[in-house]
């Protein structure tokens, strides 16, 4: 019941509209792909379903970053690591589903292990043949890493740019570790050649549609949860920690605990995003841990508007759509465009797209209100004048 109260609390009109759009997309896009013939103008190609499905997982990752950066002031430059860990957990499940259909036909060992002459499955691969186990690990592994990392960093009062640097170091360290063949995660090739998910072929249009719908619904759930949390008293406390951390201590709060909760929850969200990303793109490799990836997430969030819930989603969708278009037209210049975009947003739109629109909207409403008040005052003054004139005439 208390959870119900919390969830009901966050449902403002913009959030409700966002949820409805996402749920509608979850239904309509797969239907438009599967039920309509390619000649129909409303047909969505399988390519577009996979591409937009991927964008939705990016949007969930950006939302996760926004929860810690926009609302709690923790600029994580390593959120890609949690995304990649969730992705690897899903990848391990998908590898185990291949079974004896691999190139070497080993029923237990994935191809790369056979290739490396491994005789048995490493202990940390146990259980990943079960979906429920992989599902738990998708949330547990990123969450646990974030909890341990945050526990030490926040308790030692590491803040600001120092924290950003160590989050960056964390993802870089994981990048190097996952590149190594003897880690048992496929080295620089990563995990790929997936066949089935829950018994359905990952290549089939129906599965792709279902994965798209799952991504849209996961994003909707993320939006709802973030809205509920940020509108609770805890959300106000997060903003207080962001704006004046030491002041909250003197009110008796423990900002390190506030940050730890937000950081861990955010890592779990990022892990789920990564897990939905992997079956849609068909591969996970150590490149996902690259520091540049994490920085790109920061750019999406900044462009859309940090500290808003819809902003990071808009930012992730727009920037990635731009990236897909740009890399098609002028592939060499994409990184310059991305860098330029970040500089431009920082200089001209510090609140981001959604933040600026929301601000303008609020200012407009205030203006209209003050004009109405002015008019009401003028009318009442006029009335008073005419009344006085009437009295004088009498």
């Amino acid at each position: 019941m208390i959870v119900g109260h919390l969830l009901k609390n966050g449902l403002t009109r913009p959030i409700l509209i966002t949820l409805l759009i996402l749920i509608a997309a979850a239904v309509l896009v797969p239907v438009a792909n599967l039920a309509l013939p390619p000649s129909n103008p409303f047909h969505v190609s399988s390519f577009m379903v996979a591409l937009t499905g991927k964008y939705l997982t990016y949007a969930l990752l950006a939302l996760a970053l926004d929860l810690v950066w926009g609302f709690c002031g923790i600029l994580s430059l390593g959120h890609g690591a949690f995304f990649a860990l969730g992705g690897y957990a899903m990848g391990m499940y998908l590898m185990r589903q291949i079974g004896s259909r691999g190139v070497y036909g080993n029923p237990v060992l994935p191809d790369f292990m056979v290739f490396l002459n491994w005789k048995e499955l490493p202990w940390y691969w146990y259980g990943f043949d079960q979906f429920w186990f992989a599902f738990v690990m998708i949330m547990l592994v990123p969450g646990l890493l974030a909890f341990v990392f945050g526990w030490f960093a926040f308790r030692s009062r590491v803040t600001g740019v120092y924290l950003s640097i160590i989050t960056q170091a964390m993802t870089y360290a994981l990048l190097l570790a996952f590149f190594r063949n003897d880690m048992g995660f496929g080295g620089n090739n990563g995990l790929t050649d997936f066949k089935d998910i829950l018994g359905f072929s990952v290549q089939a249009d129906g599965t792709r549609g279902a994965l798209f719908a799952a991504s849209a619904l996961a994003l909707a759930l993320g939006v709802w949860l973030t809205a509920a949390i940020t509108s609770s008293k805890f959300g106000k406390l997060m903003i207080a920690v962001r704006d004046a951390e030491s002041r909250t201590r003197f009110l008796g709060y423990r900002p390190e605990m506030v940050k730890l909760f937000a950081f861990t929850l955010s890592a779990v969200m990022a892990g789920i995003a990564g897990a939905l990303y992997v079956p849609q793109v068909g591969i996970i490799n150590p490149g996902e841990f690259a520091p540049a990836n994490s920085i790109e997430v920061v750019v999406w969030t900044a462009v859309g508007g940090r500290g808003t819930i819809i902003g990071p989603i808009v930012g992730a969708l727009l920037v990635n759509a731009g990236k897909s278009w740009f890399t098609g037209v002028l592939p060499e210049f994409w990184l310059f465009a991305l860098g330029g975009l970040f500089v431009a947003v920082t200089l001209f739109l510090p609140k981001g797209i959604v933040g600026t629109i929301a601000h303008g909207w609020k200012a407009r409403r205030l203006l209209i209100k003050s004009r109405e008040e002015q008019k009401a005052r003028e009318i009442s003054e006029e009335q008073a004048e005419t009344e006085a004139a009437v009295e004088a005439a009498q």
Partner: protein
Amino acid sequence: MTERRRNSILYLDGVSVAFDGFKAINNLSLVLDKGEMRAIIGPNGAGKTTMMDIVTGKTRPDEGEVYFDGMVDLTRHDEADIANMGIGRKFQKPTVFEGHTVEDNVALALAGSRGVFSTLFYRSTSAGEGRIREILDIIRLSHLRGETAANLSHGQKQWLEIGMLLAQDPKLLLVDEPVAGMTDAETEETARLLREIATDHSVIVVEHDMDFVRELGVKVTCLHEGSVLSEGSIDHVSADPKVVEVYLGR
């Protein structure tokens, strides 16, 4: 001496702290009785703010004893613990949560559980709402309850911070330069407010403004170079030749 400690709300004995060899506090001893209001004066660098940092757990003393309420050794606790035990602090530079409304600022300070999950599932109560209204009335900000704190004037921020102190309902209030940057009328109003608060709280006020200290009409301690230079009524202290030399004469 232990008898003296037991009856005190705040007890500092032989406290010293040095930063890079500079003794900010040097063998400072100070006792505040329960329910007492005390004004602390002293030139810049006398150690007034450092003393508050020590009491609120921000700075650990190198040596000396710091006791709260006669029993609690404050050197063993951190800021959040000390705040929850009942020591509230208003900073020299008014520090409110600029992004929040006036009402939310007071609501965050309001006494209650401080844990992650209790704030996550917190539901406002009518008693809490009533208390917030009461405090907003006391600090004369009722008409601005929905205003973002960033839009308040300097004096209003000072008042809001005093309101947040009240909402915490501490046993001991440490108030650092409450009237800095205020108009005369606001200063007078603040003195009235502090006297009112002092009727059922122990208060330490750090202030430069001698007229304001005189208006408070309480015992005064003058600090200089990290220790007590003179103590007594405002007339006694301001007539003390040592005080005149280091502070008032300049």
